[in-house]
């Protein structure tokens, strides 16, 4: 039987430096400490001492949840896949324009949406926000159901004393003034899928009817909300393909439209999938992402807000010490309801039996438990020894199959940059949130 060595043992700390000096990330609970330079040299030369120190610093503190436990909370947020169609024909669409490969052929009906909403409001924790999201296809292809569900859930939430919020991811092209009013009038997180400037966007996100001008249509229809968002919070989201990885240009194009922030996501997939990043692309993408973030860092030093969502979220999470064995709430506090009323762990897995968790009548606790056990970061052989495991948590379950050494190096490189940037921003012992 092979004998485990310290090399196989889970990393318990990560040493890094920044312009502010030498630092130690204690992997459990994502604690960051500054270390004087001479101590850092000594520690780097003595792995046993470093491990002992990090083990001590990595002990659980009051109010923290053990990292190996599997928590099965009641659902706190759901997404409703209300539309099974879309007027765009994005090449990379995971949902197959809403039909999920034919699994979801008809749009969601009101009884299905109502049952899911009722279930959520009945079981969710009352003292925390409850979120209902709308996905598709293009959700506004089924606009009546959005309006009906929002009005119903708001009234029910008010009656029961609950904090009910909404989210939607839309391509923006089908929005009408009444839709904008609905989003202004409720706490709505609105994510508009736009891949950047008109040329890039319309190449990657063509209209299905073959006509040009998707970008122009979307920006025209969203503009009213950008000017007067009301209670809505807007952000743009861009998919980056290997054909154009200039993150800075994407960001610039989107904030020029008036979006207060925009996030980017690389296209992952099989190596032969058009536009998906290949091994050598990850380094370039990392470089581009960091280049865009450095500009944001400079803005932050001048007291201006960070506009790149990826960077802003990373800094916030590093500051509070985000530390989770799961990359998202899938199967935990979050479920996605198919048009037919089945509950799935994730909106990207509609129709996938491995992700099916039950219905609005109740969850299959055995399946859910197994799902969570299988996807705990400690159960991932690639991840369980990695120092970034509680910050990255293995990444999107749907993309796990496309995880490569290069894509993981990208994640670590990105975190390394964000950790250093965080330390360079100051703060430290005062504990004050200056960001």
């Amino acid at each position, binding site marked *: 039987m092979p004998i485990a060595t310290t090399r196989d043992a889970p990393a318990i700390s990560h040493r890094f430096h920044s312009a502010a000096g030498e630092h130690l990330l204690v992997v459990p609970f994502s604690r960051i400490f500054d270390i004087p330079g001479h101590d850092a040299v*000594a520690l780097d030369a003595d792995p046993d001492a470093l491990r002992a120190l990090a083990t001590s*610093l990595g002990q659980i503190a009051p109010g923290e949840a053990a990292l190996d436990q599997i928590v099965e909370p009641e659902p706190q947020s759901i997404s409703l896949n209300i539309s099974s169609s879309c007027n765009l024909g994005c090449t990379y669409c995971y949902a197959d324009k809403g039909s999920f490969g034919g699994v979801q052929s008809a749009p969601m009906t009101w009884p299905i949406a109502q049952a899911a909403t009722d279930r959520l409001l009945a079981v969710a924790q009352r003292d925390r926000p409850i979120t209902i999201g709308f996905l598709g296809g293009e959700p506004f292809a089924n606009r009546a159901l959005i309006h009906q569900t929002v009005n119903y859930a708001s009234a029910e939430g008010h009656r029961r004393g609950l904090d009910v919020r909404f989210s939607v991811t839309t391509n923006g092209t089908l929005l009408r003034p009444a839709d904008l009013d609905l989003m202004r009038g409720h706490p709505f997180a609105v994510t508009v899928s736009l891949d950047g400037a008109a040329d890039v966007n319309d190449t990657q996100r063509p209209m299905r009817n073959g006509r040009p001008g998707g970008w122009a249509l979307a920006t025209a229809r969203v503009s009213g909300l950008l000017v007067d968002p009301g209670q809505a919070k807007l952000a743009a989201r861009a998919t980056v393909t290997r054909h154009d990885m200039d993150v800075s240009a994407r960001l610039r194009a989107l904030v020029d439209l008036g979006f207060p922030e925009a996030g980017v996501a690389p296209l992952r997939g099989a190596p032969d999938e058009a536009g998906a990043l290949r091994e050598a692309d990850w380094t370039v993408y990392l470089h581009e992402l960091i280049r865009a973030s450095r500009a944001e860092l400079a803005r932050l030093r001048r007291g201006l807000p960070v506009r790149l969502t990826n960077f802003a979220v990373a800094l916030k999470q*590093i500051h509070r010490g985000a530390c989770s064995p799961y990359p998202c709430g899938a199967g935990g506090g979050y479920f996605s309801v198919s048009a037919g009323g089945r509950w799935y762990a994730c909106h990207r897995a509609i129709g996938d039996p491995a992700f099916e968790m039950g219905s609005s009548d109740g969850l299959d606790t055995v399946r859910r438990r197994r799902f969570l056990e299988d996807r705990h970061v400690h159960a991932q052989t690639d991840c369980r020894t990695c120092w970034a495991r509680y910050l990255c948590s293995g990444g999107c379950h749907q993309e796990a199959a496309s995880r490569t050494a290069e894509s993981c190096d990208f994640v670590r490189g990105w975190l390394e940059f964000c950790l250093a940037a*965080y330390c360079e921003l100051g703060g430290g012992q005062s*504990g004050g949130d200056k960001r």
Partner: protein
Amino acid sequence: MTDDTRSKLLPRNVAALRRFQDPAAAPREVTGNPVMTRLESGIGNCFPGLECDLRNLERRFFPFLEIEINFSVAQGIMQVAAVDLPGVEAAAGNGGLPAADAANYRTIAQDLRNGAGWVVSNIAGDFGPFKQQSFNPDDLTGTSFGNQRLPPEPWAAVRTLVEGAPVTLTLVRRPAPGTITLTANRARYLDDTGALARMFQPGELTQSLCSPWTHDFRDCACFYWASNHPDIALPPLPAPPPAAGDPRWELATAWERADRSVATPPVATQTGSQSVPEIAHHAINRDWQLLNFVLERRERISDYAPTRFNAVPLPNQAALLAQLRYAAGVEIAAMQEYLTAAWSLRPAAAQPEPLLGDLTAAFDEMLRIAIGEMRHVRAVNDVLASLSPPGGFTPALAVAAQVPGATIGSIRPVELRAATKAAIDDFIGLEAPSQSVDGLYGRILETLMQSPETTEQQERVQTVRTVMAEGQDHWETFLAIKEWLGRHAEADYLRAPNLQGPPQNNAAHQELQRRYVGLLERLYSGYQQGIPKGAADIAAARGSMLGQGGLQGALDAVAAGPFLVIFDPIADPRFAAIQPPP
């Protein structure tokens, strides 16, 4: 890494700050093994046991020598297993060891290499509780009694050697000839930081954990084990069985006695200074299967047939309730008799041994039994409450005027009196039939068992069974009290000859009555309300018994008279005397 780690680490993010919220959990440098490897983190309480074998420390009690203790060798139980020659040379080199001693160590090491042996023929030193002694370890007998007593066996001897005090070993060569005498201070097992001394090899402390857990039988006495592994039990009956009631077979003996013969009655365990020799520690690892099963206090070596319980049920619910109310009264009456008897004993502290020990035990056990009766009062009231319709329960706190007597079916008036030998016999009589069908609870139990099986019915049955089983314990304890007090004259152990109750106007006596009635009233209120509403009253009643401001202080004051403690009849019908049901 410098030592001053703590002051130089600056927490930067919120998660790092959180680590220091609890000052007790703040990181600090700790020398030695991780805390979970230390003995105080262990769950075992016997060594060899679950975590380590302390004998592995004691193998190195003498500097530079590793000594094995092997009981299978008749002569030379303590044998030198190894010599720390590098240690010897280092000490000799720096002047820490006389040249002659170093030469002796080298001789032993040389002989061991060549197949010869060295054994300890005499050991002299400060053996702690056994004082300064000098003896041949082979001569130890397994027992240890009397003045100038020796340790029972070599492990115990080594264990008591005082750390740092000089020890002289006389070693003889096997085969002869050859004699070496070495003197050195008993080695330290731990260093200044509390970690194991450097002479111990990694894993050494746990190297002998294959010792069977039955070793624990020998080390954990005092009723640690369950009732089928008791300290003492009645001996197994031979076949054919002796005449029923043959007293020689009715005296408890040590369950782990070394003499395993069954034909003749084993030596009875006595509570004096001499005890029955038991199987030695090293032997029980091998012979644990010789220990007999114990059922109903007796070791069993043949088939066991349980006795069947069979009593006449009471005719109806009214009769059941009446019998229960009377039973509560008997418990109160018994409690009064036992408290009076206990407070008639001289305070133990001022007495010489062995009276001191006997009085201490007798008083404490009588008090324990009296407290047991108080708990029975509560138990019976709980049964009564559960049998009563809602709102129909009245607490049973009246005291019985008469209690069961020494012979089955007999009855005697309640009599508050000193713990004379006759009184102790009466107490034994009162408790004796607890387990029998004719006892106070026999018919109650049979009646309850015949009612339909429900959760409540099961609870009632178990409650009564518990009361009966504890009655059995009281009976056995009074037998022991009789043995302890029986070896002294009444005049020696009672506060005064012919103790009498105090005059009615005695202030201490009146205070006792006042506190006692107050206690009963609180109890009545608590029982009446039930749990949880009545909990505060019941807790207050309990509290009012303790301390000099409580019932305890009032009993002390009356007894200091010296007077007999008397509980006057109470006119209040709730607490007045009741007669047995017809």
